[in-house]
């Protein structure tokens, strides 16, 4: 009889827990990973689910291309995941959910990410659509072993772009490596150095006014550095249109003295380079106007078309909380966008001294970025500007066009895009 009672109770518990599990509201996150952040997120989500059994969080790991190419179509159709991790935050801002009415403590949320909230909301809006999972900043990474072997001192803070190019050339010549200075083929990468040279990019009417003296000063350098062999032709001139190309493999193989890329490379360089050589991020090179990289990063945003915004807000509030952001940053080696976390410092979980040093330098660079560089992140026409710059300067590097033609084409391309998008 006792056995029958236990059996009945057990069955009842099972049935109840099954019913509870069935009743749990499902929140789906569309997530892509550059490194180990997907695994870290899963751990964090498991903890959330343990504390909130009424909410089930499903993380759909997808390729970056899916987010880039398929998500916009889903959003336009009024569908999509509940939460999504994206890089392109501003142009789809109308599809993001304003979490403000659903958050327990909207004020803390806003205060924690106030620097970057404009990047993901429509101009003039005070919506709280999400938060940046990590900050990135463009900047140079240096093979310090090559510099040491060449007995060339690594240029210090406030060193100019010309000084950096000259030093890189000396190292490459001395060490017989093929690439002195490499730049990712990206308009975004180009823009920090251009702003350093005095480029203003945005006209007084708020429309793009890209080609000015500052812009020309950097474009001319890019062309010259390719002509005199400081930069390799196959990266900027090697592909067409807006195609991205980096020099990761070449840097990892010890063939690049200075690689202008960004903070997101740190984790993978640590994994791939190991102790083959020493490397480090260095302070941003300077022009007459500034010493700045371009900030950026990926954000986690709630989608307007979710059917359970309350639960979505709870997940977001948990993931954006200070201890969670701290753990996420420490384990993924990403720079935190949470101002409280950044202010208190992050103890990155790594034994690689190159990583600690580099992240420290990049973290400092995020705090000293030029206001225009920050503004470009939330500027509506940034995308078309980057696309025009990279495709036209690529043609110059490949020997297909003169700089003067490229300037005219850059202006035309942007005008066409602006007029098409404004109608």
């Amino acid at each position, binding site marked *: 009889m006792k056995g029958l009672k236990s059996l009945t109770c057990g069955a009842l518990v099972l049935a109840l827990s099954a019913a509870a599990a069935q009743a749990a509201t499902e929140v789906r996150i569309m997530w892509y990973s550059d490194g180990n952040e997907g695994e870290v997120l899963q751990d964090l989500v498991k903890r959330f689910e343990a504390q909130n059994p009424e909410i089930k969080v499903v993380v759909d790991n997808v390729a970056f291309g899916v987010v880039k190419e398929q998500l916009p179509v889903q959003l336009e159709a009024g569908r999509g995941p509940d939460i999504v991790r994206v890089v392109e935050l501003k142009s789809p801002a109308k599809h993001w959910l304003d979490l403000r009415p659903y958050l327990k403590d909207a004020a803390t949320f806003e205060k924690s990410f106030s620097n970057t909230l404009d990047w993901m909301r429509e101009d003039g809006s005070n919506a709280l659509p999400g938060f940046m999972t990590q900050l990135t900043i463009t900047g140079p990474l240096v093979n310090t072993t090559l510099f040491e072997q060449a007995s060339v001192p690594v240029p210090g803070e406030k060193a100019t772009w010309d000084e950096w190019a000259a030093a890189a050339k000396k190292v490459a010549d001395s060490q017989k490596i093929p690439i002195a200075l490499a730049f990712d083929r990206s308009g975004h990468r180009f823009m920090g150095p251009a702003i350093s040279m005095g480029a203003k990019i945005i006209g007084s009417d708020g429309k793009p006014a890209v080609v000015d003296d500052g812009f020309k000063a950097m474009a001319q350098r890019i062309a010259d550095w390719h002509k005199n062999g400081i930069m390799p032709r196959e990266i900027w001139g090697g592909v*067409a249109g807006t195609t991205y190309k980096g020099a990761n493999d070449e840097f990892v193989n010890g063939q690049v003295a200075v690689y202008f890329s960004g903070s997101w490379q740190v984790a993978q360089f640590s994994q791939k380079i190991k102790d083959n050589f020493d490397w480090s991020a260095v302070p941003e090179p300077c022009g007459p106007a500034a010493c700045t990289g371009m900030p950026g990063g990926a954000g986690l945003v709630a989608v307007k078309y979710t059917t359970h915004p309350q639960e979505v807000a709870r997940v977001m509030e948990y993931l954006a909380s200070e201890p969670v952001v701290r753990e996420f940053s420490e384990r993924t080696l990403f720079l935190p966008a949470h101002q409280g976390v950044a202010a208190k410092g992050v103890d990155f979980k790594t034994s690689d001294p190159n990583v600690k040093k580099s992240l420290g330098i990049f973290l400092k660079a995020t705090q000293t970025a030029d206001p225009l560089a920050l503004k470009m992140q939330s500027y509506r026409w940034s995308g078309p500007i980057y696309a025009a710059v990279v*495709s036209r300067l690529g043609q110059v590097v*490949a020997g*297909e066009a003169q700089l003067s033609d490229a300037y005219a084409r850059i202006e035309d391309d942007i005008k066409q*895009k602006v007029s098409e998008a404004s109608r």
Partner: protein
Amino acid sequence: MSTTIPGMRGQAFSLSSVLVLPFRILMGLLNAPMSAVQRRFGIGGVGAVFLAPNMLIFSIFVLIPVAINAAYSLTGGTAIFFDGRYFAGLDQYRTLLSCNDYTTPSTCLQDAFWQSVHNTAFFVIVQVTVLVLASLGTALVLNREMRARGFWRSVFFFPVLLSPVVVGLIWKWILQRDGLLNALLLNFGFERTLWLAERNWAMFWAVFVSVWAHLGFYALILLAGLQAIPRDLYEAAMMDGTGRLRTFWRITLPLLWPNLLVVIILALIRAVQVFDEAFVLTGGGPGTSTMFMTQYIYETGFAHVLRNLGLASAASILMGVVLVGLTALQLVVSNRRARKEAA
């Protein structure tokens, strides 16, 4: 075949009758609806009824998308769906087609489009010529009596089995700055060459890789044609003392012509659509020297931050017109040939 099934006493079932039985049952079941269809649509209409499911699927996946694409080419804006787009009439076509000098892409408003048109035209002419000649040569060699002929045939056919992206990646690993080819050259004391960053070399490799990847398929078609030529014609020519070259011109080539024609037209259509291997291999570069029409369409419609679906659709319609022209050419030529043979 009349195998008696063991264990079946008193009845002589053959295997063939057992196999045919389900078919008979099925036909019996279909008999009533087929008769109804015939009564309703007449004998001529039965064909249309059979064709209808296929046409329905073809319409959903081909005709309707083509119509939507054509409609997009008459609109502008950056929205994905029609309700957010404005009617632009023929503006997108005007944008594409406005040039001061069509032979100089830099004088065109959409210079990248015209650059891609020039590159595609060059690629089509060179690649198709090389591909057809190489396929013919390979088929002629593989048709000869030789040791391990099956193995050699499979060697040439193997690249056809590979995905175009894999083909592009393999050759990229070979041709990049630190690739296999440069490693070999450096080993033998030669200079390193940037195979994919020099304009002419990049186009050469785009053509070469494309020929390498597709040669086996076309060689197979030609090999089938060669094997269909009666042996006795060659024996007669040999007895007459005809030379090899003359035999080739007078017997092989005329009798192989229908297959050769199919190969030329298929290769032409495929070359106009070139994208995957070339995109993976060269990314359209250096500069825009290997950017083909399909890449222009992809870049304009999908890769740019603000998608210009109208312009991309207009470009794809123009490309479609070229492809329809080539297909019509194939139809005309094959019909003419069929009529000649019938006569």
